[in-house]
């Protein structure tokens, strides 16, 4: 009965979402406070119902209830407990249920934390969120129902896809989904503004923190996905410009642009209309990403065409929401008042520059991702637009943007002074120059471009802290006072510095691994050795091992590092018993920021094992940089300035009100 109750609460949630998508918006239109306020209770109730539903499915997975088709298809009674949980979202139906759950949780957060929002705005925002919820709940229930049952359940399930049985992949989808779905809030805010025809001051205050939350999780999700692909797929690559990756990267680019334009809007009330458009674009990219990954269109356009039910449904959602919101934008944007003026060289100007380049980059990724699909749909030709395309288009677009990053925070609002800003960057410039000279001097085979990009990375890393150095000014104030000042700087200033620093760190990792990586492939027998970048690897032996749902052959390598340290590395080949599917487990040894990566290829008859070895200098910086970015985002989010109280008059009446309480502002 638990399973069926979970199914029922999901349908009930759909019913509530239908009500929610009409009543509060109607209430806002006619100015009826009660009808607006019911949105609060409804969104919380929906979150409760969907959580129960998700819990019921999880219960079925944990208890291996194979009478649920979805459980039977995607789990096995012998899986470790962690993977029983992650199996819930390791499949199409379950992952969409997770999507819907996160959406409902976000909506309930708006109603809980949005006490300082004007009731009309809040009602519209929650109404728009409910539209999305209706669309996706219907999609889940009609085409991808995780609660379908089997009359004669088998005694064993078909197991979760082995490459998904991994800690990284257990947390990657929830992260990414929080990112995707978080953008629905800014989208809802944009739509609410267009519906009511006014942009409240609260709008600007709200867009940034919510975009930040989404952005932090998107960053985490993408970085984790990239690291997972790196160690699990055994190819040693960390980014493939694969459509699935692009599907998460495009919302990230849009969210990054939105984050910056929201800043201008918050501080200067400029770029309002542009910000609204970006909010729409960012969520559209989330929807597009969901469509690409969930419709099956990527596997093959033809497979999609032969079994189009799901694909067409998501496509309809896509067209309705993107088309509808853009139409509304065209019709209503004129009503919104645009804000303050500014000179081209100014903080605003720098942020516009940022936005132009980020959106152009977004456009190139979009073209590179969709073009092959379009082509296949038109004439059936299957082409792939690989890294060369993206390196030639995306790369050059990024360079001027990255060059400009350290300037941004140093320019004043309205009218800035480029030369003055540059004068605060001489440390960064010096560091960059030094890095370039050192690279050219010590590495004979590095291309000059690589040296320049490494210089750019140092320019970014050092330049990121120029604003803090300027605002604390150790030389003028002395250490103690400068420290006080540094502590007093707003979180967003520190956040900006760390995020920009992280960008430099990631860039440094990318260049150094692309240029200085070495690779050795060798067929080896037990007792043989191979050498890569000063490391000597000796194949010591093969240990077979049996785990609950797979068997594996662990290959032991004894490694002698250039520093004379000895350690063991254990790559393995696994066979998952239920699906009879082999996987390769690579072994990675980290020293400093660099990694030694060993992965296994085929085993031939005479016990020759093909071993692929890479030395990846500074590769961890790629993900370390994203950690810095996330940390920056968190600092910015923690900024106390983002909290605002509710109006005083409302506060006085709080005694008789249920939903207007003490202001959150301390």
């Amino acid at each position, binding site marked *: *009965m638990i399973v*069926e*109750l979970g*199914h*029922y*609460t999901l*349908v*009930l949630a759909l*019913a*509530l979402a*239908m*009500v929610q998508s009409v*009543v509060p918006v*109607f*209430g806002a239109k*006619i*100015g*009826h*406070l*009660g*009808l607006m*306020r*019911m949105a609060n*209770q*409804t969104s919380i109730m929906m979150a409760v*119902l969907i959580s129960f539903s998700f819990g019921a499915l999880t219960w079925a997975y944990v*208890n*291996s209830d*194979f*009478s649920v088709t979805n459980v039977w298809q995607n789990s096995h009674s*012998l899986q470790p407990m962690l993977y029983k949980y992650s199996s819930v979202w390791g499949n199409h139906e379950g992952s969409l249920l997770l999507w819907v759950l996160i959406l409902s949780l976000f909506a309930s957060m708006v109603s809980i934390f949005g006490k300082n929002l004007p*009731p009309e705005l809040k009602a519209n925002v929650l109404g728009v969120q409910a539209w999305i919820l209706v669309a996706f709940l219907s999609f889940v229930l009609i085409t991808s*129902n995780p609660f*379908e049952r*089997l009359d004669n*359940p088998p*005694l064993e399930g078909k197991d979760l896809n082995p490459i998904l049985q991994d800690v990284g992949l257990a947390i990657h989808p929830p992260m990414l989904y929080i990112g995707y779905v978080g953008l629905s809030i800014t989208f809802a805010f944009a739509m609410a503004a267009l519906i009511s025809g006014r942009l*409240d*001051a*609260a709008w600007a*205050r709200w867009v940034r923190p919510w975009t930040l939350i989404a952005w932090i999780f998107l960053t985490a999700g993408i970085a984790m996905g990239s690291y997972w692909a790196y160690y699990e797929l055994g190819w040693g690559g960390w980014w493939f410009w694969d459509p699935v990756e692009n599907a998460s990267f495009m919302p990230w680019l849009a969210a990054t642009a939105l984050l910056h334009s929201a800043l201008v809007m918050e501080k200067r009330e400029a770029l309002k209309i542009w910000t609204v458009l970006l909010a729409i674009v960012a969520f559209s990219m989330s929807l597009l990403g969901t469509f690409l990954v969930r419709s099956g269109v990527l596997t093959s356009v033809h497979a999609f065409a032969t079994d189009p039910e799901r694909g067409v449904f998501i496509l309809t959602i896509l067209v309705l929401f993107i088309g509808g919101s853009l139409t509304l934008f065209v019709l209503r944007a004129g009503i919104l008042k645009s804000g303050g003026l500014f000179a081209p060289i100014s903080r605003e100007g720098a942020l516009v520059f940022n936005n132009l380049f980020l959106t152009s980059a977004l456009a190139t990724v979009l073209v590179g991702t969709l073009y092959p699909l379009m082509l296949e749909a038109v004439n059936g030709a299957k082409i792939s637009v690989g890294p060369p395309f993206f390196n030639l288009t995306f790369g050059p677009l990024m360079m001027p943007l990255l060059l400009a990053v350290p300037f941004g925070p140093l320019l*004043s609002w*309205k009218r800035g002074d480029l030369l003055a800003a540059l004068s605060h960057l001489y440390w960064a410039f010096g560091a960059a120059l030094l890095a370039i000279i050192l690279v050219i001097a010590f590495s004979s085979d590095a291309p000059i471009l690589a040296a320049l990009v490494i210089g750019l990375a140092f320019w970014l890393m050092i330049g990121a802290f120029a604003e803090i150095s300027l605002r604390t000014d150790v030389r003028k104030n002395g250490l103690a006072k400068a420290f*006080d*000042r540094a502590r*007093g*700087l*707003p979180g967003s200033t520190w956040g900006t510095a760390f995020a920009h620093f992280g960008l430099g760190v990631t860039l440094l990792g990318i260049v150094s691994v692309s240029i200085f990586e070495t690779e050795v492939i060798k067929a080896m027998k037990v007792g043989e050795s191979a050498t890569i970048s000063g490391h000597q690897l000796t194949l010591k032996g093969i240990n077979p091992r049996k785990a*609950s749902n797979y068997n594996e052959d662990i290959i032991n390598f004894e490694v002698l590092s250039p520093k004379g340290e000895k350690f063991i590395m254990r790559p393995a080949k696994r066979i998952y018993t239920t699906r009879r599917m082999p996987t390769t487990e690579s072994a990675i040894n980290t020293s400093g920021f660099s990694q030694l990566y060993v992965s296994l290829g085929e085993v031939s008859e005479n016990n020759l094992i093909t071993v692929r070895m890479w030395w990846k200098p500074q590769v961890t910086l790629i993900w370390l940089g994203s950690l810095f970015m996330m940390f920056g985002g968190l600092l910015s989010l923690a900024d106390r*300035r983002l*909290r605002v*109280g*509710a*109006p*005083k*008059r409302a506060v006085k*009446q709080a005694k*008789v*009100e*249920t939903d207007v309480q003490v202001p959150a502002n301390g």
Partner: protein
Amino acid sequence: MIFWIIAVSVTVLSIGIIIFPIFGGNQISVSTLDFDKEIYKARLKEIEEERKLGSIDEQRYQYAVAEEGRRLLTLADKNNDLNSTAILKSGKSGLYGLIFIVLVVPVVALGGYSKLGSITTPDQPLQARLEADPRSQSVEVLLKRAENQLIKNPDDGRGWLVVAPVYMRLGRYQDGVLAYRTAIRILGATTELQIALGEALTVRGGGVVSEEANELFRQANKADPENIKPMFFLAIAFNQVGKYEEAVGAWNKLIAKSSKNAPWLKVARQQLEVAKTKLGIELPGNPTTQDIEDAKQLSSGERTDFINAMVEKLAGELDENPQNKPGWQRIIRSYTVLKRKADALAAINKAQRLFKDDKTFLEELEKNKQALN
């Protein structure tokens, strides 16, 4: 029934919770612009704080305060203009909302679920299924239970012995072999177990007695010379590897030791015949070893003649002794290869009449016929 009681209660409760605010509390007249003002005030406060910390200079501070002040003033103006429209009212509209909710929610929820749900299917967590009363359970469930026990306690040799024959009966020969092997590893090799493993290996190999199985049977036979089973398989193995003299001896011994109506006697006699034939008297219709040796020495033209001669010989033999299924199969194949279509069809027709009770053979013949046409 309980399900519906819960479902309806949850639905009623949900409706109650969401309609409560529509009529709860007094309606207030807060202008939405008041919310905006609050934000500007908060920002002024931040600017003050930043100045206190010295993180913005005096000039910037002045600019910022002036700008926020200007915004507040515009807002105050707007507030006066718009105050009337911003009053929040209540009234009849609330009732329409209520009716909408009370109609839509139960219809969508209960109606939608009736269409999608499977209320008659109970929860079936695996553990509970395995723990249910054994008398009402299928072999598969019992086996799964035993397997789970063995995962927890893999050194339970008796347990492996219990599941092994079940695997064999279910056709999971690989698992059967593994189970017997594990049992032997844990319990040690007894004659009985050796025979069982040997038999399992042979079944898995489609009837071929492998080297390993053969060794097992030899050991068993040594330990217990009176046991018929190892003798039987050893004899089969002799036949399979072409040691016909040993085979004849082994079969004769086995037949002598068996009681008059032992069920394996028929097979044993048949196999004995085979071995005997191989030794001296060839089975009717087969080319003799000598024939094959001869054929190897011939040129291609001679070989065709030779084959034709062989086919004629076979045809003659089939006329005399028509109850020879392999013979018919061979001759039909030969005619087909030699492109003697009419002869092939004639042979097929004859065979169809002769073996009209042998369904599979008839199907095969029909296929041959179609291939010819």
